[in-house]
């Protein structure tokens, strides 16, 4: 047995040396190139990637209902040139590893396009995989870094954080507010937007008197609002997802802030009014959806039964996302490359999102559907939302 043992040993050492020498760090995209066309089948599959479990489960659930209702309407009206569409809805739980794996799963299951996902870090991680798999992705995460990578296959609903900031700066100027207190949350949403916000404000000659962060799951945020109140600011810019605005509103009431709070489009989340009640007041935000638009009124009318009360903006934006993709398929058929090229020429003035007369359009150089100016300002007034004065 002895000689065999020695040769086994030598073999092991040799392979180890070979492996050590051969390994290096490859940086090209780490996904299999499979440019296969969409698998023919009786239905056209569209991949829907949402964080159905984990911290962003609430908005994801509203979007899922929006996608399902829209698909039902499209299929009831005969689908795309006679073939129905099928939604392949998957949960990425906000985890980048799962998100990247799902891109391959959608491709393997013959999806024509991917609508997803909600969290910016996951979309950023998926970018290489999407490019390698050559499948068009319409992401609804709002970090501007997503399209800054100039990945030809990735489109964004918009407005991005950059777009919203231009809107905010414009409003601050018109309201004569000059000393902002900047509060951003510690999730990718807030952390990603913070540098962009500081740049936007500096460009407009506004230097924040306070710049602080807070956690989205905090039970009480009055401490950070008290600092804002004592910092001599004349208004607060709060950059976070939906529910924390309710905590901020209650905190403002507790410390008697008395300053307007300028927020992001996600302040439209009905959870803010439901959680804060009358305390939700003096909060201004740009809503991606103008509820006065006739087509919005029609959809809200139809869907309000499904949502038991106000239809969340997330659901309405899901309607637009699916409509953009289906319009593309209706024009060029279920082919990924053709659909991508067509999307770069897409233009649609009467979708739900955006101000009356705003246009959702893409071009080879602009992959963001709605640009800054397309939004409408709204404000909370004792728990109800209305168009902001002077918008």
């Amino acid at each position, binding site marked *: 047995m002895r000689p065999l043992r020695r040769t086994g040993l030598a073999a092991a050492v040799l392979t180890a040396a070979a492996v050590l020498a051969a*390994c290096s760090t490859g940086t090209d995209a780490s996904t299999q190139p499979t440019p296969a066309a969409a698998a023919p089948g009786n239905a056209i599959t569209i991949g829907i990637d949402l964080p159905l479990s984990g911290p962003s489960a609430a908005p994801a659930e509203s979007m899922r209902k929006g996608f399902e209702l829209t698909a039902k309407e499209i299929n009831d009206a005969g689908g795309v040139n006679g073939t129905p569409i099928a939604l392949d809805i998957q949960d990425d739980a906000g985890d980048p590893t799962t998100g990247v794996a799902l891109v391959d799963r959608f491709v393997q299951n013959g999806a024509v396009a991917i609508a997803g996902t909600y969290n910016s870090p996951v979309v*950023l991680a998926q970018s290489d995989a999407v490019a390698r798999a050559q499948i068009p992705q319409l992401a609804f995460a709002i970090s501007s870094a997503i399209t800054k990578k100039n990945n030809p296959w990735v489109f964004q609903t918009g407005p991005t954080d950059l777009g919203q900031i231009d809107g905010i700066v414009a409003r601050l100027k018109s309201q004569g507010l000059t000393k902002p207190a900047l509060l951003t949350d510690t999730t990718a949403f807030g952390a990603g937007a913070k540098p962009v916000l500081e740049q936007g404000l500096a460009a407009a000659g506004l230097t924040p008197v306070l710049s602080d962060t807070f956690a989205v799951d905090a039970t009480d945020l009055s401490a950070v609002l008290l600092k804002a109140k004592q910092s001599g600011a004349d208004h607060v810019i709060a950059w976070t997802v939906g529910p924390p605005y309710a905590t901020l509103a209650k905190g403002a009431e507790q410390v008697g802030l008395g300053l307007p709070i300028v927020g992001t489009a996600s302040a439209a989340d009905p959870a803010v009014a439901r959680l804060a009640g009358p305390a939700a007041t003096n909060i201004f935000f740009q809503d991606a959806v103008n509820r006065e638009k006739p087509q919005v009124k029609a959809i809200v009318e139809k869907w309000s039964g499904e949502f038991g009360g106000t239809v969340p903006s997330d659901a309405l934006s899901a309607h637009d996302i699916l409509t953009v993709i289906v319009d593309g398929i209706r024009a060029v058929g279920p082919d990924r490359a053709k659909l991508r090229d067509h999307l770069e020429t897409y233009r649609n003035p009467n979708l739900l999102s955006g101000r009356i007369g705003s246009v959702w359009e893409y071009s080879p150089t602009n992959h963001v559907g709605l640009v800054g100016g397309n939004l409408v300002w709204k404000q909370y007034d004792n728990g109800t939302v209305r168009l902001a004065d002077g918008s």
Partner: protein
Amino acid sequence: MTVVASPPRPAPSVRTTRHWRWTQPAIVLLVGAVVLLVVRPGPFDLRVLTLVAAYAIAAVGFNVLVGFAGVVSIGNSLFLAAGGYAWAILAVPRGPLVALLAGVVVAVVIAVLAGLALLRLRAYYFAVGTLALGALGTVVMRNWTSVTNGDAGITGAGYLKLFGLTGVSSIFAAAVLLLAVFLYLQEALRTSPLGLAMIVGRFDPPVADALGVNVSRTRVAAFVLSAVSAAVGGALVAQLAGGAFPDQFSTTAAISLLVIPIIGGRGWRWAPVVGAIVVIAAPEYLRFLDEYRLAVYGVLVTLVALFLPGGIHQLVRGLVARVGRRRHG
């Protein structure tokens, strides 16, 4: 001469266990080669298999911690993160070896400090202590933006290119190779004095002390070994996602790491691989359950924990015994 007249037992299950040290890694390498060259699965399935291999590597150390030394930790996501971030930051500029080593060193340092500080505590207190450690790790990952770039995480991390393969197949090859190495070390440890000391320390601490075993030192050693394998596993997870993000190394990841050896069968040499297949691959292929996917997974974990403490190993041993009995008629 048999000293004691004992009832006729089935032929003693005399197992020459020495061969496993080579055969187990060989089997894993063989299966890896077959999958890569013969089966050639689609990108999604290959990615899931690579994730299984990565978590199996991390679970080898955990199998030593829970199975040999009997210590429960719910904070090992910290070591996954150490490996993941070290890879994401250093792999491209400094090459794969430095990145892997850096991750392992950082994880070992944390493990030694935490081990010395916490390992005097008993089961629950230590488990919750590691939970707090993991929570602290998440807060640091989210807020130490200068190094970890906060919640946006670090993207653009390269992957281990081997044998001229590209993309996920190269990561899969690297993962299988590393898994083989770690399984070899697991078996070597199991039959070494340190491994036996850990096992007796788990089953009967007073007897271990009487045999000259420093039980707390062996537990720290087990904790450090679990950190090493978790760091390597973390590096592979980072390669798969093309970067390191706080949400990858959260409490849920720590819980998965804890559940893998328990479902596999604590201390069993195949527990990391079998457990990883159940914990990582099963949910991917339960996706048709949609909303109920996690509910079914939770019920499975509870039932195994309560009624099958020996995990799948207990099933296998029952099966082998039954086959054994049938052969002896």
